């Protein structure tokens, strides 16, 4: 008691005490701790997000202020066949690549979930394509797809399956499928490893019980594995769709949108218009146009795959 009275007598000590009490107040400390993260995210994420919508309504060139022009960017885009081609390409790329990523990834996860020698080594190998920088592995694919020296064409000719080199990146449909293959290659590990983590949480006794009841392997998969895995499938595929839809690096490295815009995604087209072409406003408008598609894709894959959850009578 006497100590407190003495402390209160000295202003410096009182200040220190107030400070100490303040630093033990969780609300004050909480907001203080949020400060670094919040300032980074507000300045470099929330503000640009808003600025992006504003830029879409202006004719801003690079490095100079622009003027408000209303919806003119969107009107001119709606008459722009290249833009609509890029929309088609983006949807095609996302749908086809996500489809294959899901099935091949799930298949590989099921394989890895079985009793295997060197399991952790295998898992480490499988994740490798995900770890290596996308651009650098895409350069390897670029070389694999070379029109003159493609190793794939060479091997197929040696096997007698084709008689001339395939121009992987020179023909529109060839290029579309070639980029999808590279994207699937890169995306499988993510799907596999996360689904494998989900599979490992399913108790083996459930499979044993199902087997004793006479379930076939297919039925065990359909009625045990799939229902228990569906929440994690929904999350994984949402992320996968999101990453595929907004992909930029792979296309930029392999084709830069060519041949004749056949592989331009909305992201690469907005880069080309905004940075290469210098029309920040038009590029921002293309980026803005991605948002509704993105929200639809997220909602579709998230709720579509989790359908059982919000049907009446379920949890």
């Amino acid at each position: 008691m006497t100590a407190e009275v003495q402390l209160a007598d000295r202003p410096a000590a009182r200040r220190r005490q107030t400070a100490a009490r303040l630093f033990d107040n969780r609300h004050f400390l909480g907001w203080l701790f949020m400060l670094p993260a919040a300032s980074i995210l507000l300045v470099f994420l929330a503000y640009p997000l808003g600025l992006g919508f504003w830029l879409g309504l202006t004719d801003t060139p690079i490095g100079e202020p622009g003027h408000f022009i209303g919806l003119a960017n969107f009107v001119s885009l709606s008459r722009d066949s290249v833009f609509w081609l890029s929309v088609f390409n983006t949807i095609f790329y996302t749908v086809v690549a996500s489809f294959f990523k899901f099935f091949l990834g799930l298949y590989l996860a099921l394989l890895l979930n079985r009793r295997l020698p060197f399991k952790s080594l295998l898992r480490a190998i499988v994740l490798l394509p995900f770890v290596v920088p996308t651009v650098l592995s895409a350069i390897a694919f670029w070389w694999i797809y070379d029109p003159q020296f493609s190793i794939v064409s060479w091997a197929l000719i040696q096997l007698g399956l084709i008689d001339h080199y395939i121009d992987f990146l020179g023909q529109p449909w060839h290029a579309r499928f070639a980029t999808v293959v590279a994207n699937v290659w890169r995306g499988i590990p993510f799907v596999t490893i996360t689904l494998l983590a989900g599979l490992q949480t399913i108790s083996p006794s459930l499979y044993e019980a199902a087997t004793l009841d006479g379930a076939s392997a297919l039925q065990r998969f359909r009625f045990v594995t799939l229902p228990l895995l569906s929440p994690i499938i929904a999350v994984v595929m949402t992320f996968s769709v999101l990453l595929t839809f907004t992909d930029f690096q792979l296309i930029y490295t392999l084709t830069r949108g060519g041949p004749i815009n056949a592989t331009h995604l909305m992201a690469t087209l907005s880069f080309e218009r905004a940075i290469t072409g210098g029309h920040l406003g038009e590029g921002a408008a293309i980026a803005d146009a991605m948002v509704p598609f993105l929200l639809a894709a997220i909602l579709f894959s998230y709720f579509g795959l989790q359908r059982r959850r919000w049907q009446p009578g379920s949890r």
Partner: protein
Amino acid sequence: MDYLERLPRRVVTLYLPLGIFVFVLLFPFYWMTTTTFKPDAELYDYAHFNPFGIVHPTLMHIEKLLFETDYPQWLLNTTFVAVAATVLSLFSSVCAAYAIERLRFTGARYVGLAIFLAYLVPPSILFIPLAAIIFQLGLYDSDWALVLTYPTFLVPFCTWLLMGYFRTIPYELEECAMIDGASRLQVLRWITLPLAVPGLISAGIFAFTLSWNEFIYALTFISSSENKTVPVGAITELVEGDVYHWGSLMAAALLGSLPVVILYSFFVEYYVSSLTGAVKE
């Protein structure tokens, strides 16, 4: 149920498909490596040399890359940017995650939700407005442009991961320390952080890899060759017109991948746990 199967069946249903998967997943790396060490004479002559092997291994492509291009400088830039962005993000994320998960200040739940939503914002729709901001701040063509913008995707990821990790640390430990007279800051420094080290390593490694791999911001914000990062330099500077020096391009891809692959090979478990942890929450 595997013990019910016989070997021939296992070969067809398990080892064969697994072998095909591993072959396809590893082939580009094998191809990258052989091309790096192959002399040009063998590289472009499939008729006389089987493309899958190397007859006379050479270091000429690596030599060209290291001594005739800015590649060493790009490696340095990438390392600096990745380390600085990781440290900055890790610091802000630890503070934010601790505040949201443990201090539970007013509005913590909404802030947590906002962090998750920030995680879903893709760089492809942010790079144009960010370019305008970077220009205004006078950071264009500087490493700091990248150090400051990479946290936009690193902070949400690391915070989300660390929130999950802090949740697994028993709150009773912190209460004990507070009863013994420790302040909140002392609790964080001496109790929570030491226990969260595995989570910090996971988040740090993942953040480092993500910054090393980043492409679109580095491509947009950097223009001069000596400031570029490895992915951007490799794709913009090593291609001269229509002449592709595949040997040095592959060497660039191989050398640029090595740092992350080595780091990854030491911390596979941490890496996997951060990958799956981020999804499970």
